[in-house]
């Protein structure tokens, strides 16, 4: 982490006008329930991966819907598809299908393919 004030820092601001929502738009077609997220975090609270890493599906959905896709592929690869999140989501988002589809979309668009 660069020291603030003595080094050049990357801009942390989301400049929404420059963002490309193509991943969100694609996912809205293949798994429309992504639009239903209310950011409650139940998925992240129940997630085994999230207990040991920075992984949070709630945050991933938020970032995708703002066009922030930096490191997305690496983040998505952490999910073990256990599906506990889909059992607890109060809005019935098909979370496991969402993650699988997000991986496919990244591959299709050739963004950070692993």
């Amino acid at each position, binding site marked *: 982490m660069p020291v603030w004030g003595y080094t050049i820092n990357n801009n*942390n*601001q*989301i*400049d*929404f*006008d420059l963002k490309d929502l193509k991943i969100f738009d694609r996912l*809205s077609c293949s798994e*429309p329930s992504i*639009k*239903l997220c*209310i*950011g409650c975090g139940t998925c992240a609270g129940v997630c085994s991966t999230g207990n040991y890493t920075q992984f949070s599906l*709630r*945050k991933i959905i*938020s*970032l995708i*819907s*703002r066009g*922030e896709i930096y490191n997305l592929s690496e983040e998505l690869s952490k999910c073990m598809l256990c599906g506990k999140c889909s059992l607890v989501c109060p809005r019935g988002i098909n979370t496991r299908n969402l993650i699988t589809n997000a991986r496919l979309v990244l591959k299709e668009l050739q963004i950070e393919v692993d």
Partner: protein
Amino acid sequence: MSKNKIVVIGGGIAGMEAAGQLAGLGFDITLLEKGNKMGGHVANWHHLFPDGKPAKDIIARLKSNIQDSVDIHFGAEVYKLQKNNDCFILKLTDGQNMEADAIIIASGFDLFDAARKEEYGYGVYDNVITSADLEEKFCSGKPLKTSKGSIPQKIALIHCVGSRDEKAGNTYCSKVCCITAVKQAIEIKESIPGAEIFCFYMDLRLFDRYFEDMYYEAQTKYGIHFIRGRLSEASEDLNGTIILKAEDTLTGKPLKMNVDLVILMVGKVSSKGTREISKRLSIALDEDSFIKSNDSHSMFNFSSVEGIFTAGTCTGPKTIKETIADARSAAMQTASYLRKKSVTIENEK
């Protein structure tokens, strides 16, 4: 037993409903409205949440309940109140005096003056308007346009303007703005299907029946974007678009966005009329400047003065449904107060 006389102060929906109910019970009712039309704020609204019913239908129904049975008195305010034994004497600004055995205050609310949130630029930038301005545009039937006459393609709705804000002097929630934003976002999307619409909110308070369904529909059917983060500031670009800055709290990042039109969801404040009438009638106000109720659980239609009752938003923000229910409750409390009083007088004779 002589016919009891009740004066209802305020011709909005609360006053109309209370007057209609009491007239139906056989009381002699005068409804005072300081302006020249009935219906209060609802008369300025186009369509209503949660079902999109035209506001004028509600007013027409309330009017039909009172037009033959209630004496409606326009263009005068109460400037003084005297109590003579058990009877109130109201002195009006048009020189008339009026007697009443009981009074119902239905003096309503005012909309928060959005210009007071200077950082949002209302009254400074032409493309920043309020939820009430938007309803006026809907009522006019003209298409929604920016100040330069183009169809707006990116529109932001800002929740909690003047509500839950110590800087604005109002720490309470105005209750109806969240659902109004959802309703207006859907209405804009219906008239401009290609538009991108963003709601900036702190918490979404969609408490009543069908409100969550509207929110669900706004997300699924209309693709409205909800961004959890309160607007920090708005500024104007050279070409008249508005630059918004907020934190997107769910990604934990500051966010900047250009939009063509900003709509501020103005909250409710205690009306000037409510504060003035309370002073003239020596009724206690609470810290939020709305009329203080005897208690907030079961005595909410009772003011601090015996014989003076409250109906509607003079005791705090309410939906139309809540206002109507509160007005009916006030009517019932007033009727039972007067019946008890006449029984006591009869027994004493």
